[in-house]
């Protein structure tokens, strides 16, 4: 079995399966179920993270978590799941209930409700972490 035909057939099969996943409704749209889920996600970061205060966005697609030292973790949707990342020192601003976090690769808008201003203060106070992972470490 050689030549380009098997590869073209495999590419066609890949396209078909991706289309099937889309048609079957596997389009991601993750929502955080609770503050506890957000805390667990933050705790799973390399080095651990003992969250104390949690802000769930109104749409439950983002969360901000602060520990006792005022360090911060942002929970972001990633397809059907979430990723956690340290966001100490990220530039931030608020407008009404909206909180905007300017990360190095994107800006994240969070509907923080009445808590927008207090979280903005926390963000402004946060100092850069001592061991911020700058790339993916070994899953090991």
């Amino acid at each position, binding site marked *: 079995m050689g030549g380009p035909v098997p590869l073209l057939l495999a590419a066609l099969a890949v396209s078909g*399966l991706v289309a099937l996943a889309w048609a*079957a409704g596997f389009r991601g749209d993750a929502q955080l179920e609770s503050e506890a889920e957000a805390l667990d996600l933050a705790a799973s970061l*390399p080095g651990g993270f003992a969250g104390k205060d949690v802000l769930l966005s109104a749409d439950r697609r983002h969360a901000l978590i602060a520990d006792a030292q005022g360090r911060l973790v942002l929970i972001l949707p990633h397809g059907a*799941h979430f990723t956690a990342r340290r966001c100490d020192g990220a530039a931030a601003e608020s407008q009404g209930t909206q909180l905007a976090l300017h990360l190095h690769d994107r800006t994240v808008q969070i509907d923080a409700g009445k808590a927008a201003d207090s979280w903005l203060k926390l963000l402004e106070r946060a100092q850069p972490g001592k061991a911020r992972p700058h790339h*993916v470490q*070994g*899953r090991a």
Partner: protein
Amino acid sequence: MTAFDPLPYAIPVFVLLIALEMAWARRNGRLRAYEVRDTAVSLGLGLGSVIAGALSAGAVAAMLVWVHTISPLSVGWVWWAWPLCFVLDDLAYYWLHRAGHRVRWFWASHVNHHSSQHYNLSTALRQTWTGFFALSFVFRLPLAAAGFEPGMILTCAGLNLIYQFWIHTEAIGRLPRWFEAVFNTPSHHRVHHAVNGLYLDRNYAGTLIVWDKLFGTFQRELEGQPIRYGLVQQLGSFNILTAAFHEWKAIAADLRAAPWRHKLGYIWREPGWSHDSSRETSAMIRARSADAGESRKS
């Protein structure tokens, strides 16, 4: 060299089983089981790995033939050599896979297989593009040196890869005890793909789980312990090139930044190692996780 590559014949079955698993997930309301962009990346990496494998197949075969030629041993094509070759190839795979998690150079090639936060049959096809570059084939050269025919080794390696497809699923719970005791199963391999502290760097087996039991790396899947899949620092990207090359890029960045006497450590030490101890290895995460478990108990 006579060799039979079973992989092309298995691909239609893979496609059918992925479609069936999607139907199962939808029927059971498991809408987090698949994600369309994740599936596209997994299958794209699978397709790319077939191309990368085809491009390097000649060189790998030539090296096996060369080692076989200079070896004083020759087993030949006798029937009993087949099961023996398969078992020894599975042992070679265990050490290749273990190195793939314990040596950052090999991890850079293998990491993309673990970069999905999903665990489904499409994840099985999330295979490396850089296995030849990482020199992963050296783990199979001892088989040729032991006198096994290169074609037989490659066929057994293909069959081993095919076996590992079906264990990438949450649709199958536990299998009969005798089967779980001897073979790698969905339950054992879920542990391998987990990032929970207890499960890190466990169950490297390809087909036979007995190697993990023999070499002290076995961990049973525990009831009531929800599994998180992926990487300890999740990739957070659906870019296929990022998935394929991110750890190589990270190694290059570390090599540039590290002091001279520590540079090689970023290649041959375990993933997560750093000369200033600013990062965590799996052993450190396991210890921290065990400590947290102990403090919760007390």
